[in-house]
């Protein structure tokens, strides 16, 4: 049967996965710290059908064989770690990293995850936690009688204890950065896990070593550009359509063959 049928199917599957990725980007257009993903394609293996002119006359020099490809495949959904849009919130525990660093979060399993989502809160025990209740790493505990918590650009967390006038330093935030942030594994809930592709985390205080400084009272929103996604959506839909035309034509060709003998 025609190889074209399965070749076109690989094209349709690839485009469908692109639409899935675009849908996820658009669904997260207002997610704090979300990084858009991009699909990457490659062509599949080529089959060499025959070497034309290999035994031909001395004058005919056709050096190329007949190579037939088998379609395309999705090779990667790459996260693009460009800076997202900034939104002012006025809440001192909303933190924005202006640079490449990630916040560290300790999961209940003891594992460390990384995030750009700076929507931190104080839980019942006085710990600074994410919206999911995971504690920030290194842990910060805010005394029950603290009045105003403030975080400066170098990540120093201070609070004014009730009855005193001078703010008291509570802890120092630490950020993590990676050689290849695109290699981090998305774990959902705005969290990333370290992989061998991302390389081990390098830790430092904000403002040092290219980490980027902390801005309190602001949030980093997603870096999804709606117009860009819409264009990608149109392109993917049309590419999907045109691959279906390959299938239709192949199918009609088979119908012609079936009608050769009446």
């Amino acid at each position: 049967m025609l190889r074209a049928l399965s070749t076109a199917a690989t094209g349709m599957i690839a485009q469908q996965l692109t639409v899935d990725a675009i849908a996820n980007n658009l669904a997260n257009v207002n997610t704090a710290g979300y990084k858009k993903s991009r699909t990457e394609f490659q062509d599949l293996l080529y089959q060499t059908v025959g070497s034309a002119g290999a035994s031909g006359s001395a004058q005919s020099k056709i050096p190329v064989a007949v190579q037939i490809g088998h379609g395309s495949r999705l090779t990667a959904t790459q996260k693009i770690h460009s800076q997202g849009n900034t939104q002012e919130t006025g809440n001192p525990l909303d933190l924005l990293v202006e640079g490449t660093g990630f916040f560290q979060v300790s999961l209940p399993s003891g594992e460390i995850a990384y995030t750009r989502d700076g929507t931190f809160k104080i839980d019942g025990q006085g710990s600074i936690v994410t919206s999911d209740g995971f504690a920030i790493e290194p842990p910060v505990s805010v005394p029950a009688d603290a009045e105003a918590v403030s975080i400066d650009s170098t990540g120093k967390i201070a609070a004014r204890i009730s009855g005193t006038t001078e703010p008291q330093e509570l802890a120092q935030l630490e950020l993590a950065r990676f050689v290849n942030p695109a290699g981090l594994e998305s774990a959902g809930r705005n969290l990333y896990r370290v992989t061998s592709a991302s390389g081990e985390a390098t830790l430092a205080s904000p403002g040092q070593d290219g980490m980027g400084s902390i801005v309190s009272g602001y949030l980093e929103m997603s870096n999804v550009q709606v117009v860009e996604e819409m264009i990608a959506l149109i392109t993917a839909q049309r590419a999907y359509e045109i691959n279906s035309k390959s299938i239709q034509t192949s199918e009609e060709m088979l119908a012609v063959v079936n009608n050769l003998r009446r």
Partner: protein
Amino acid sequence: MTHGIYAAGGAMALLELRQEVTANNLANASTTGFRRDLVAAREAAPGESPLRRGSLALGILDTRAVLETGSIRQTGNPADLAISGDGFFVIQADEGSFLTRAGGFQRSATGEMVNEAGERLQGESGPIRLEKDAFQVARDGSVIVDGNVVGTIRLVSPPAGASLRKAGNGRFEQPPGGAGSRPQNGEILQGYLEGSNVNAIREMISLVEAFRSYEANAKSIQTEDQILGQAVNQVGRVG
């Protein structure tokens, strides 16, 4: 007597092959750096042995990657590189080095510039290695970190007329005569990606054309069959 049936059958088998190549071009309409294939076919000259599928002779065939530049789009990702003009990147895979136009690179955990398959981008002197994630690539391929040139991305342009064999995954095999020299008019654009050079209109026309020729050849087989049928059943019948 039945020669016409074989000729038409061969033409149909050839058109199927063309259709497969078109399907592959269309399937790769969104593949970074993909180059469309073109099938050239001609009759076998006396003494030449044509490509066969079973008993059907398809003629002398040649698929050739068309090296026109694809559409270049801005991505803003500093590790995305596109070549404006001629030339190919050289990447080092486990099984040897290949040429490619697919410029979606990233910095690996060891600091090297690699593509999605982990194949290393080659510079004029060894793989490109970045000590920091902030870097600039100048149009001439110089890689600049903190104001210092740390390497130059190697660009090669195979000799004109050299035919390139595809190796899958966006790669071309190095031509037998060597990879060639640095192209005169090849520049590197940072933050851009080159798409596929597949043109949907051209491929649709090719689909329609192949399909109609296929139908026409099927008709000629049917006609030949009718003629044979008449010869067998009617000629020589008495009364």
